[in-house]
């Protein structure tokens, strides 16, 4: 059976670092309040870089480091909820910038699960034999859809992109997955509403472009759903949690991930985190974290990892991969 193996991991963060103290000069909040409730100490915020810029930088690093000919890339997928345009999609912009003229390109909108959804989609094309090489990215500029007057959300969200090269292989790679959605709870996390506004109808609607989140709903969803999803993937794969080197979870909130670890009876040290320095970058968070872990030399060939994204939609996606 053809498998899809990770052949490179990279990230790109905007250079501007915004600390909690800096935020406290914009809205009424404090470093203590933010860090004790979220684990976030600072985040990277765009000073002009859009989602495509961060994704292009990531993809450029990926193919240069791997020595891939851009023309050998068959597919580019970007998981994002903050594309530059409705069209062209970000993946097409990456294709143009890198000269991957043979690739077909699309974005996936699944919020914080977007990167794992994208990996899953790319893997299916590789397994089917249509694609040999793919670039899979997760990138956001959430600062575009953040209400910077709302202290309950503007302290959480941030910008950044990360991604991987995925290549057809005989072994390893993506082993098992569990992807789900519950659209009935979609209103718990809203962003980017487009009003009907034409010469014949003008919609009166309070919802706007900014992120609106019901904190308790999302907290309860994540801490209740994700442990079961991780357990299902481990059970389906017949892999014990002791065989997993790291659990790489979406970085929404340190305490959510601590509760998930506790429910699974797994040491929190196996749940590597970088939320203190990057904040919540939605679709970018898992590949950014993977890239940071890779830079620190934490990975070896054959390591098994659990990836788990969860968020808007509501969507959730867990995947077992072997490096």
């Amino acid at each position, binding site marked *: 059976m053809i498998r899809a193996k990770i052949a490179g991991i990279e990230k790109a963060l905007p250079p501007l670092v915004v600390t909690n103290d800096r935020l406290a000069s914009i809205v009424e909040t404090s470093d203590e309040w933010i860090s004790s409730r979220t684990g976030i100490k600072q985040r990277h915020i765009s000073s002009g870089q859009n989602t495509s810029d961060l994704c292009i930088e990531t993809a450029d690093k990926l193919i240069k480091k791997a020595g891939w000919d851009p023309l050998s890339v068959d597919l580019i997928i970007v998981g994002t909820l903050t594309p530059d345009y409705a069209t062209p999609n970000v993946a097409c912009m990456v294709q143009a910038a890198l000269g991957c003229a043979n690739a077909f390109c699309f974005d996936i909108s699944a919020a914080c699960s977007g990167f794992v959804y994208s990996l899953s989609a790319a893997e299916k094309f590789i397994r089917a034999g249509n694609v040999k090489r793919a670039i899979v990215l997760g990138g956001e500029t959430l600062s575009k859809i953040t209400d910077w007057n709302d202290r309950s959300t503007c302290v959480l969200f941030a910008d950044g992109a990360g991604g991987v090269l995925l290549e057809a292989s005989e072994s390893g790679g993506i082993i098992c997955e569990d992807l789900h959605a519950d659209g009935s709870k979609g209103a718990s996390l809203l962003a980017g509403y487009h009003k009907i506004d034409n010469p014949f109808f003008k919609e009166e609607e309070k919802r706007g472009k900014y992120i609106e989140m019901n904190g*308790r709903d999302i*907290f309860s969803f994540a801490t209740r759903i994700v442990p079961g999803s991780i357990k299902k993937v481990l059970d389906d794969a017949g892999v014990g949690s002791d065989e997993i080197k790291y659990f790489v979870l979406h970085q929404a909130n340190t305490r959510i991930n601590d509760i998930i670890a506790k429910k699974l009876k797994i040491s929190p040290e196996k749940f590597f985190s970088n939320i203190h320095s990057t904040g919540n970058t939605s679709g970018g968070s898992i590949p950014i974290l993977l890239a940071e872990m890779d830079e620190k030399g934490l990975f070896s060939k054959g390591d098994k990892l659990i990836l788990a994204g969860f968020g808007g939609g509501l969507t959730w996606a867990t995947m077992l991969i072997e490096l």
Partner: protein
Amino acid sequence: MVFERIRDIIAANLSIDPNTITLKTRINEDLKADSLELFKIVNEIEDEFGIKIEYAETVETVEDAVQYVKDQTTE
């Protein structure tokens, strides 16, 4: 019975002695539980008793939680 079970959930979540918790204890103000700790406590009470507490924010004292559970169960 309901009180003891709720008391134990609160004590375990906040790492405090259950004997310091009474019906009149204010979860937020007296025990210094923040919003996420309150969410976690409310979720565990929901799971323990198989009920749904719509507005976690309305649970101020331990007695509020006990009453909420009693209203929604036959206990």
